[in-house]
Every structure is written in structure tokens, then in C-alpha cells.
């Protein structure tokens, strides 16, 4: 038995509860958003309350399907009202002396477009809530439209490639950095190719939420919207980390730290090749994206050096 346990992946050491989800999956083949949510559930524990909104995680969180579900208590919100609804729950439970972990789980469209005001407000008030944004770089659930998380050059249904268009012409918002600038107790990035790193951050989030607002930004490729092979989502995650396109970092109480430093970063093109939405890009456009990625990483490095 002991031998068998030793073979379990290390990430299981962070689990505090059994799987709260039923077998089956309401998501598209190869989707890792659902894997993400199961991991969150196992580490946050069965008594955490999940908040969601219409989007890809809606089928899983609040039952937009009759196939797979969970045993958590949950609260479905309008897209403008996730962090504010979480505030309402957290404040009432505080007043009533009830201990509950409040976990918001939405896509980037909600977190950094239509719901950014309410997240920013809740962060500024330092509410005791955990907000997890699964970033699939656009409105995937409604048919792959662009969001403010869609990167330069990506083809989406509202930034299509055409004779006069190369796809999206502006950069994405650097949402985790925007949240870090709120000076909240804890902000981190994570992705599904680095499960232990993510698990540590979730465990830390559960602790830090006692001090106030916690924001986790999770890179979460969409196989359908990004035109990625169903078996390649995790490969894309790893490539994003190894090219510093999506560096894994955290900031707790003002101290920035890259949690998975990459010794020899690969060119961003290594990742782009795996993703169909970038297939049309030429060298010049790829270099724009590379430059933007490098700039962001330099800022992160500078922040990390402040207290190093």
C-alpha cells in the first residue's frame, strides 16, 4: 500500500478532499478548464462555495447540462456581478460568524472585460474572496470572439483574418499585473502543465484569503477556439511557460517572485506553431508578439529584483 501511495503524483499531497465532481465531462474534448476546476475543488475543499457566470465553466459550475455536476454549493451570477456577489456572500457570512471559502471561477471575458470594474472594486475593498480567472484568451463559449485577453495577431470570429486584416491588431491586457497593482495580499499566475506549482499557489491562496483579496490567473488553452489538437492542451501550456509568453510568478505582500524560472527561454514561435489561430502570422508579426512578450517579462523581472 505504501509503495502504491509513493507512486501517486506529488500534486495529490495538496488535496484536502475527495473529488466533488461526478464522472463525465460537459466540456469539449481536450478542454483543460474542467481539469482546472477539479484541481481547485480538491484543494479548496468541499465546503468552498463556487461562483460562476455564463461561460465555459457554467456547465460545470451551475448545471447548464444534465451530464456532469458537483457537490459544492454554488452561486450563478450575471457577468457584471461575480466579485460583487462574492462580496455579498463573504460579508454576510462574516456578519453571521460562518466560516466559508468563497471562490470565483470565470473566464477572461468576465474577469478582465465586462466584470473588471467589480473585480477592481472588490480588490480595493480587500474582500476575503479568491478569484480564479481561467484565461482562454477570448469568448470561447459564445463562439470564439475576441476579448481583451486575446493577443496581438490572433484570429477570432470578431478579429478574422482577411485581405485587410491580420487578426487582432492590439495587445492583450496584462491582467495579473493589473491585479498585482491593487496591492492585494496575493496574486499568482498558474497553468495546467505545472500542476504542483499551481497546487502550491492554490494552497497559499486558501491561507492568504484570510487577509483579503486573492487573484489567480490561469493560462487555459481552448482546443476548439485556438485550433489546438485535443491531445495537445498541456503541451501548449508548457510551451507558453518555456517561452516566457506566460511566466509563472506570484506576488505576496509586495514581494514578486518567478516560481518556475526558465533557464533558456525558447522563441515564442515554438508555441505559436502549436496553435492554429496564429497560423497566418508572418515573421514580422511574430516578432511584434515576441517583442511584447519580452517587454512584459522585463517588467516582471524588474519587479522581482526589487526585493531580491
Amino acid at each position: 500500500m505504501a509503495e502504491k501511495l509513493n507512486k501517486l503524483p506529488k500534486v495529490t499531497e495538496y488535496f484536502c478532499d475527495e473529488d466533488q465532481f461526478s464522472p463525465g465531462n460537459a466540456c469539449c474534448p481536450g478542454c483543460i478548464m474542467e481539469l482546472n476546476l477539479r484541481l481547485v475543488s480538491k484543494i479548496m475543499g468541499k465546503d468552498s462555495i463556487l461562483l460562476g457566470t455564463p461561460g465555459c465553466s457554467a456547465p460545470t459550475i451551475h448545471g447548464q447540462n444534465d451530464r456532469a455536476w458537483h457537490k459544492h454549493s454554488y452561486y450563478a451570477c450575471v457577468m457584471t456581478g461575480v466579485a460583487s456577489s462574492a462580496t455579498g456572500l463573504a460579508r454576510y457570512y462574516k456578519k453571521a460568524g460562518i466560516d466559508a471559502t468563497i471562490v470565483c471561477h470565470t473566464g477572461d471575458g468576465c474577469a478582465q472585460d465586462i466584470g473588471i470594474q467589480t473585480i477592481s472594486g472588490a480588490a480595493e475593498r480587500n474582500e476575503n474572496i479568491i478569484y480564479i480567472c481561467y484565461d482562454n484568451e477570448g469568448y470561447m463559449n459564445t463562439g470564439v470572439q475576441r476579448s481583451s485577453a486575446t493577443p496581438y495577431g490572433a484570429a477570432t470570429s470578431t478579429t478574422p483574418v482577411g485581405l485587410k486584416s491580420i487578426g487582432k491588431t492590439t495587445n492583450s491586457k496584462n491582467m495579473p499585473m493589473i491585479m498585482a497593482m491593487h496591492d492585494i495580499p496575493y496574486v499568482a499566475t498558474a497553468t495546467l502543465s505545472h500542476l504542483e506549482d499551481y497546487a502550491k499557489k492554490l494552497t497559499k491562496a486558501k491561507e492568504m484569503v484570510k487577509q483579503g483579496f486573492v487573484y489567480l490567473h490561469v493560462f487555459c488553452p481552448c482546443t476548439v477556439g485556438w485550433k489546438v489538437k485535443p491531445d495537445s492542451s498541456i503541451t501548449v501550456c508548457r510551451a507558453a511557460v518555456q517561452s516566457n509568453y506566460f511566466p509563472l510568478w506570484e506576488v505576496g505582500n509586495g514581494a514578486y517572485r518567478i516560481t518556475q524560472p526558465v533557464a533558456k527561454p525558447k522563441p515564442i514561435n515554438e508555441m505559436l506553431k502549436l496553435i492554429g489561430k496564429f497560423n497566418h502570422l508572418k515573421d514580422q508579426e511574430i516578432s511584434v508578439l515576441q517583442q511584447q512578450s519580452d517587454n512584459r517579462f522585463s517588467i516582471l523581472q524588474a519587479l522581482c529584483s526589487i526585493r531580491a
Partner: protein
Amino acid sequence: MTARSKNIKVITGNTAAAYAVLRCRPDVVSAYPITPQSELVEQLAKFHADGLLDCEYVAVEGENSAQNVACAAVMAGGRAFTATSSYGLVYMYDTMLQTSGYRAPLVMVNVNREPPGIHAVYSGQQDMICTRDSGWIQIVVENCQEILDTIIMSYRLAEDYDIQLPVMVNYDGYYLSFLAESVDIPEQEDVDRFLAPLKEQPQRMKLVAGAGTGCGSHGIGMGFVEYRKKHMAAMERSKELWDKIDQDFKNEFGRGYGGQIESYRCDDADIVLVATGSAVGTARTVIDAKREQGIKVGLVKLRFFRPFPVEKLCHILKGKKAIGVLDRSICFGWNCGPVFQEVCALTRHIGIMPMLSFIDGLANMDITKEHISGMVDEIYKASQNKPYQELTWLP
């Protein structure tokens, strides 16, 4: 009447509302300031800062969040309060629909003001009209004392196990929000006793951590239809209960408002004017004067706007020779006032008679005694089978 002590203060409508909220002991107050409501949320912040109001006071970053915070707090099992006006009301509209759809018994004050379109930081009931089909119970009141009393009564209605619907208490911006008059502030123990019956009822469903409870699953097919039908049925039930709560309040505090509507000198009247809000006081004075001139005119003060007090109105209006309706808002697409349009819909119960629409008091234009006198004259003319104007804009 068991509550006897008098604690009279000269306070504004906004302050009266704040005292009502204080007495109702909410768990969570979410608030965002807007003219002409700001004084209300400032007063609540002061009560909270002074330790008088033991609640979580959430100073949100916008009205949309104010509504979300309050709705979630109620769904978690708490008592919540929020207040807004005009732009704020329409900015929280998506969540207002969620609040009523969730059957969250929230009480909210809306201080009536002209909504966006033509910029006007002025009184008008158009904001309330914009949200008429939101599934909320909507009440309009006339004076500062009624503001205070109605908020207290509204918690009894909203949180009643058989109702579980949000209630919006409306009062005219400026004319009531900033009007100072003497208000009797009830004792805490008396309000506690008045709200106590709620505790004896079955507990409503709430969101409990670890219990596998949920809010807002997709209402698929028949589940959706059943939910809608039950919502509508609860709203219908609220009419009779509101009349009873009003009576209970009168027994306890000595002040009653007639429930869904107040009928003034209507019994022997030939003609009737229907009005809402602060204009009713002015109208009452005019009705008395006209009575002295021999015109048999009555007045109906509409307190419930949603649900519409169909039965009560039919009972009073049936057999009258002409009816006029005073609106402080307009009804796009029907070329009349909104309440007028709804009163017209009663004809299938009360038959055909001349009905006159008066639009007055938009954007802080005073509804004067002269205006109302002219309205009564026109309604009287119509009752005498003389030519009359169906729609009149004033001034």
C-alpha cells in the same frame, strides 16, 4: 396600539429612510451615492461609524455591484438593504432581474429622479417606470413619515415565506428626499416586535457552504415555466398581505395608509383623480376646495404600482362618470402617462367612461394647486358629456 412613546424629529425623507433601515437591523448594507439619494447612504454610514448600525457596510464602486452584493447577502440568508436613484437604478437593471428571479427578499429604496436620456438632476418617476417589468414589488409613498413606515412594512412583506420577493420603495427626489418634516421614529423594541412574526415562519432556502445548495441553475423547459408562474402568483398574493400588514402596522403604531391604495372622498364621488407620490398632498387640498364648490370629486392615492391594485381600483372606480390620472412620467408608444395606460386596462372590468391623462411634474416642474384644479375641471367637463382633452401636458 401597543407602541405609545413618541419620538418626533424634524428630518428629511432621506433621513427618515435611514432611521427605518436602522430599526430593521440589516446584516448587510451596500451603497453607492447618487443625487438625490446620497444623504441616505451617508446617514447609514454615520450610523455604522457610530456603532448604532451593526451591519456589514459595503461601500461599493457602482450600483451594479450594490445590487449584486445585496442580492447575494440575501440568498446567503441575511437581511440586506440598498438604495439608489435614476441612473443608478438602470445601471443595476441586469441584477435587479436576477434578484427577483432568485426570489431574493431584498428591500431597496429608489429616490425618484429622471433617468438618462435628457440629462436632468431633477425629480420624476420615469426611473421607476423603466423597471416596471422587473418582477419587483413597487411601492410609491407620499411623505416622510410614510417613507419610514413603508420601509419597515416592506421587510414584513418581502421576507414573508409566502412572498419572497424584492420590494422597491419609491419616493420623489427633492420633493421628499430633501423635504424636512416632523417624523415619529419608532422605538427599536416596537419595530423588533412588528418584524418578529417573520421569525416564526418556516425558514426560506439559503446558500449554505458544504450543503450542496445552489442559486441560479439553468431553468430548462418546464422548470422555467413553473418558476415564472410561481413568481407571478407570489406577486398576486402580496396584494392581500400588504393590506393586512398595513392594518397590523396601524394596530401597533397608530398609523395606517390603506394598504395598496388610499381612497379619499371617493364613496359618493362622480369623478375621481388617481395620483401617486408627493403630489397627492397637494391634490387632497384641491379636492377639498372643489368639494366646497359642489363638485363631487374623489382622489385615489396609488401606493402599489406593481402588482397593480386591480381589484381595489375596480371597486372604487366602477360607476364613476369620468376618471383622470396624474402621471409624473410618460409612456412611450401610447402617447399618455403610464399609470393612465394601466387604469385604461381596467375598462374590461369597469366599463367605458371618459378617461383623461395628465402629464405633469417632469424634471422638477412643480405640480401646483392650479394645475390640479384645472385637471379636476377638465375631468368634470368630461363627466358632463362635454368635449374634453384626453391627454394634457402641464405646465
